[in-house]
């Protein structure tokens, strides 16, 4: 169930096959891989996927660590606040995407209304190519920053006291303490959070598909969405399999990269 499909995908990636036609699959060598290099939708989709992941990861790790530092103290209602942060990550993505689509509506959406109350400029959000990726990333950040925050918060709870006492006696400033003590000690936790968020951001499907279906004019079509329509709308199974191999390698490379960073530093 797990390994056979991967082997089968590699096999299919060397075949030419439209599942909708009566012509059976036939071997075409590396043709599918050559075609990818000339396929603008594939190339742009790959760049877009990587850009989406970098933006989401940067936002989530940045805000996540900052929020963890702020929330790392006892206060009234901490348990409730902590529980509330779990909601975005467990709520059904299709439902969340639909609500954000409504919130982003340029004509009647509540986001533009709230911005106008604050005297801020309003936007077209997911309705124009220029801002669609950033708007989708914003949903991703809303949904997943709490995961990073809660992982880092768990890390903060394990930190030893001694280095802080020593640093305070030596007269280190707050910023120095953060940069030279807290951050290095937290690194394993940040790497774990970044590893899983990075992998999952590359694979994002539900949110993008429901909000934009890759539009407007393919401007938010990531690799996952392009492969999906290539396989299940155009029924181009051979070519889709070749793209899947590349996609799998992309996700695999990120995993290996992050794991080795973690090993080297620890």
């Amino acid at each position, binding site marked *: *169930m*797990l*390994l*056979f*499909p*991967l082997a*089968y*995908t590699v096999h*299919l990636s060397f075949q030419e096959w439209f*599942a909708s036609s009566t012509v059976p699959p036939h071997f075409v060598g590396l043709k599918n891989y050559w075609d990818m290099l000339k396929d603008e939708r594939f190339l742009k989709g790959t760049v877009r996927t990587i850009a989406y992941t970098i933006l989401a990861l940067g936002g989530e790790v940045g805000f996540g660590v900052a929020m963890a530092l*702020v929330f790392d103290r006892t*206060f009234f209602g901490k348990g409730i*606040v*902590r*529980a*509330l942060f*779990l*909601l*975005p*990550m*467990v*709520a*059904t*993505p*299709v*439902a*969340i995407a*639909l*609500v954000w*689509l*409504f*919130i982003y509506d340029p004509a*009647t959406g509540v986001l533009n*209304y709230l911005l106008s109350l604050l005297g801020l400029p309003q936007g077209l959000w997911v309705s124009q190519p220029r801002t669609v990726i950033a708007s989708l990333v914003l949903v991703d950040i809303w949904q997943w920053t709490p*995961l990073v925050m*809660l*992982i880092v918060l*768990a*890390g903060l709870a394990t930190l030893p006291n001694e280095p802080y006492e020593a640093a305070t006696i030596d007269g280190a400033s707050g910023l120095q303490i953060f940069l030279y003590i807290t951050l290095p000690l937290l690194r394993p*936790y940040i790497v*774990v*959070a970044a*590893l*899983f968020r990075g992998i999952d951001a*590359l*694979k994002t*499907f*539900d949110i993008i*598909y*429901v909000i934009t279906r890759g539009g407007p004019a393919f401007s938010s079509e990531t690799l*996952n969405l392009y*492969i*999906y329509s290539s*396989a*299940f709308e155009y029924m181009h*199974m051979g070519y*889709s399999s070749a793209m899947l191999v590349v*996609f*799998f390698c992309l996700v695999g490379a990120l*995993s290996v990269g992050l794991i080795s960073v973690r090993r080297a530093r620890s």
Partner: protein
Amino acid sequence: MKEGPRLTKSSLRSAVFVTFVLLVVSLYLFPFYWMILSSLKDQMQNMAYPPIFWFKPTLANYRTVFQENPFLLFLWNSVVVGFGATLAGLALGLPAAYAIARYRYRGIAFAVLVARITPGISYLVPWFIIFTQVRLIGSYTALVLSHLTVGLPLIVWIMIGFFEDVPQELEEAALIDGCSRYWTFVRIAVPLTGPGIVAAGILSFILSWNTFMYSVVLADADTRTLPVAVFGFLSYGGFDWGALTAAATVITLPVLFLAMVIQRHIVSGLSFGGIKG
């Protein structure tokens, strides 16, 4: 006398802190608030600009959702597939996790990690071809098997931690008394990890409930699960925001409730044991 200014400063700081907490929390809850609020408005109120915050609520949208669609069937499908995938996941995942925890089977652990990392669509394309050939498209079997790959890695990863916490001495005592490894697992390890099994099962059920891509490809009109049905409304419903948000509320509320039950385990489950909560 020195106490005075310091107190004001610290109370100012805590006021800033409380404001910050309230701001972040309301930012986080707003989409849920807006979802529920919109589901209680009629179509006119939902299209009004500026948006309306105070109005007389109506349940008409919920009536639309349940009466004009076989929504109960979709609900039932989601429950059947969720339970099927979770039970199968526990049947396979508990022994696998136990083997990893007790005998350090690196191979299984690695396979589970690969399954967690691999993009779902890498499985979906070959499955679609195979299920088409054996005429399983649209069957519960195809859905349960596909959803199994979402929950299984998570069950294994959560349970490794729980099995490692079972005291070795208890199991050794049972083994000395002539209990086989299998019965030691069934009679001692499983009952002692009950809370973990419940948490892993619920989390696996939630993920199956939320799964969209596998279901949209592998289900047909009769086996459609809730996310697919709601996506269908969005495509053909002509943006009836009241009904759409009502459907979204119906899908989301059970998940939010279940999540509150197992909240301690969610982060370690989703980060794959990255931390132990």
